[in-house]
């Protein structure tokens, strides 16, 4: 029923440029002429070294930051501020310590004055999906870091946004917890069919989760390559050692300027 003959993308990022003016010195171009189209239900991993503007990109798509040039269209309408059809998961869980797990999960419906009972049922369902049944009445400080980040994922999903933005959500977690959460996130994505933009430093994480991996370059932040990951879902952690997985990872590392044999973290060691 679209009047436009062109296929309408769910997320349309067109020639996006973001320039910061630091207090001292010349302006910094965080993003330069960045374009990306994302269809509904895609899982797009965005990977790049620190300073490539990937967090900036997420903030603009989430309506938390204005663009200097270009625009972001969401479901056909330009993004001018925070929107209800977008959920965000930040680098740290940012749970409110005075609220229980359940109340934290229900924060977004509370802010938006949405139906409480309906969302409570949904929150309980999502908490169960991430293995947090029975923790509803606990407070955040009683939870481990991984559990806290699960709650923040639930919080982002409770109001049923069509688009989920994730800004290096598992970067601060230990390797085992991180892998478990990658598996859980894949399950959530497969069950809910959300469109997800997932920012990460980790090449394996990007390839494991993404139906596409967008590789970004630094100074100025720009798109290097958009790689389609044609591996079937659900993907298993054991699949990370398959030749196909290795081929994709190596391609990403090549683009990032990291040799296939070296540690992926060396390019991303300097945290922004």
């Amino acid at each position, binding site marked *: 029923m679209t009047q436009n003959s062109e296929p309408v993308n769910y997320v349309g990022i067109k020639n996006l440029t973001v320039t910061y003016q630091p207090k001292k010195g010349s302006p910094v171009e965080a993003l330069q002429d960045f374009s990306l189209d994302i269809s509904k239900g895609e899982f797009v991993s965005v990977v790049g070294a620190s300073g490539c503007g990937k967090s900036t990109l997420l903030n603009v798509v*989430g*309506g*938390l930051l204005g663009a200097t040039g270009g625009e972001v269209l969401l479901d056909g309408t330009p993004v001018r*501020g*925070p*929107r*209800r059809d*977008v959920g*965000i998961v*930040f680098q*740290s869980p*940012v749970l*409110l*310590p*005075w609220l229980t797990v359940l109340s934290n999960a229900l*924060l*977004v419906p*509370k*802010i*938006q004055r949405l139906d409480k009972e309906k969302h409570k049922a949904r929150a309980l369902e999502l908490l169960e999906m991430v293995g947090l049944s029975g923790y509803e009445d606990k*407070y955040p*400080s*009683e939870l481990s870091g991984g559990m806290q980040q699960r709650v923040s994922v639930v919080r982002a999903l409770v*109001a049923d946004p069509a688009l989920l933005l994730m800004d290096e959500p598992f970067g601060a977690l230990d390797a085992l917890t991180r892998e478990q959460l990658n598996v859980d996130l894949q399950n959530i994505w497969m069950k809910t069919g959300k469109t997800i933009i997932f920012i990460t430093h980790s090449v394996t994480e990007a390839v494991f989760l993404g139906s596409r991996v967008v590789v970004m370059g630094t100074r100025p932040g720009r798109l290097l390559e958009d790689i389609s990951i044609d591996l079937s879902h659900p993907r298993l952690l054991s699949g990370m050692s398959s030749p196909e997985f290795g081929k994709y990872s190596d391609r990403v590392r090549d683009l990032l300027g990291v040799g296939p044999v070296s540690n992926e973290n060396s390019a991303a060691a300097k945290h922004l």
Partner: protein
Amino acid sequence: MKTASGRSAARVLFLILIVGLWEFAIRAAHIPTYVIPAPSEVWNRLSLGFQQGFLLEYTRVTAVEIVLGYLVGVILGFGIAVLIVQYFAVDFFLYPIIISINAVPKIAISPLLIIWVGTGLESKVLIAALTAFFPLLVSVVTGLRLVEISQVRLMRAAGATKWQVFRMVALPNALPTIFGGLQVAIVLSVIGAVVGEFVGASSGLGYYILFANARLDTASMFAGFVLLALIGTFLSQAVVRTGRKVVFWREIDKMAQV
């Protein structure tokens, strides 16, 4: 010393020891009562005062002044602090004036307040309120400005209004700091009420202390000190306990860290 009752018992025993040593030292050194009274002398004044009833009345009068003054000061301090944090103009124009007015000692303003509102309850409440107002204001302003940027970003991303951010994030975050201010303010309210009574009153513990002082009745002055200390301790403990209940998540944090 492990149980709560054991700790309380140890504290009471220590207090008895101090008072006993005090009594002994006064008697042994033959220090005149008008310089430092022995605890037994102070006790005599207290029991006499309560038997005759006037000390109970004075305690009640001063306690009412303290509590009312505290409430007025806290409500005003909180309200203006919120305006300062939320509106730049209030911060820019009004806050410096408030800071300057606060720099004038309350005791210097008190005679004027007595002229304005008389020697009754109102002047004491006003002076106690003025004394409690400022520390509370500063603690609320500081606490509200300590807001976690990440929490504000989270709220904004969900489309929260300015007042939702205030109510749901900034205020709860500020509560530990605000309770610090509430504790300082309650003790200052005691000072404010007594200052008010010193400047002009016909009742209350400050009046009693001043009256005893004029007669070199040091034991009665000490009786007044003891009652003021009891009121102050009781009220500040009440604030501390309320704080622990309200800022309950700090206790959970502590337990989680063990």
